[in-house]
């Protein structure tokens, strides 16, 4: 009975406070909630210290955060294979229509559109995935944080820089979805 309930998509008013709980659990461990720091740590692990002082620090001091993202991947595995009924997110019908119009989907299924994320060997897919990754990695470090570090950690501590960063997230997101999607997927 409980498992049946868990297997349904969780409502926002359950998920939101749970995210704050994750932040609290990390604070109780004496750590900060911020996922994008791991990208910097991974650079350091891979030897980026040779090319920039930005990466010259003892990455072992950040190994706890690498364990958190390792857990996040395991959590995604558990949720997908044991706690889901496989239903697609029921998004706004107009958005579904737009995605069909752009040729991104035929029908709504899974968590990600197949045309982009189920690799078929096309350069188009590779470019979207790689450019998207570059923008995320470059932007988040330039901004000093991502959705977790700024939108939750920073804003909850009333940090004006975090508000500016979140406004930036939305400027970028709106430009991409409203103006660039029709060009990219035309």
């Amino acid at each position, binding site marked *: 009975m409980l498992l049946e309930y868990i297997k349904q998509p969780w409502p926002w008013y359950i998920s939101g406070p749970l995210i704050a709980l994750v932040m609290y659990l990390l604070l109780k461990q004496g750590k900060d909630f911020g996922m994008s720091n791991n990208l910097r740590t991974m650079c350091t692990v891979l030897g980026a210290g040779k090319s920039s002082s930005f990466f010259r620090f003892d990455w072992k001091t950040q190994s706890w955060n690498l364990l958190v993202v390792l857990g996040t991947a395991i959590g995604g595995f558990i949720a997908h294979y044991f706690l889901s009924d496989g239903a697609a997110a029921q998004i706004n019908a107009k*958005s579904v229509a737009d995605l069909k119009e752009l040729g991104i989907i035929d029908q709504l299924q899974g968590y990600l559109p197949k045309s982009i994320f189920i690799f078929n060997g096309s350069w188009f897919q590779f470019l979207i995935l790689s450019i998207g990754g570059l923008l995320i990695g470059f932007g988040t*470090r330039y901004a000093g944080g991502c959705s977790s570090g700024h939108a939750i950690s920073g804003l909850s501590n009333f940090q004006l820089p975090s508000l500016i960063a979140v406004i930036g997230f939305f400027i970028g997101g709106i430009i991409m979805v409203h103006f660039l999607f029709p060009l990219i997927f035309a």
Partner: protein
Amino acid sequence: MKAVKFILIGILFGIILYKSEAASWYRIYEMFQFRSFHMYGMIGTALATAIILVQIIKRKQVKDSNGMPIVFLDKDKSITRYLAGGTIFGLGWALTGACPGPMFALIGSGYWTLGIVLLFAILGTWIYGVLRNKLPH
């Protein structure tokens, strides 16, 4: 023992990201179209709860598990880096539908192409590190 705690916190986080549909590309698309309350409700309640927790920690001077005070550092004051960096991040977030947390949850759930996104996100961070002194902050 500490390592296990961090992995468990991560597992909880991954399950929440997946089950909340924050890891769904479609939810991010819809959010940037302002057509659904779902993501705003989630971020809003996360933030409201986090504000209360931070206030409790500050006022009751809650200690961490090592008995040390929990401190909150102020972020450096600036507009340029947060606005420019944030906008660049937002472009990538909307394109791939994944920010650095959900990226890992999705890789775990079997969408291996997010591994390409992750590799290039690491490369993007490296490029930032190399160019950092030439960029306006």
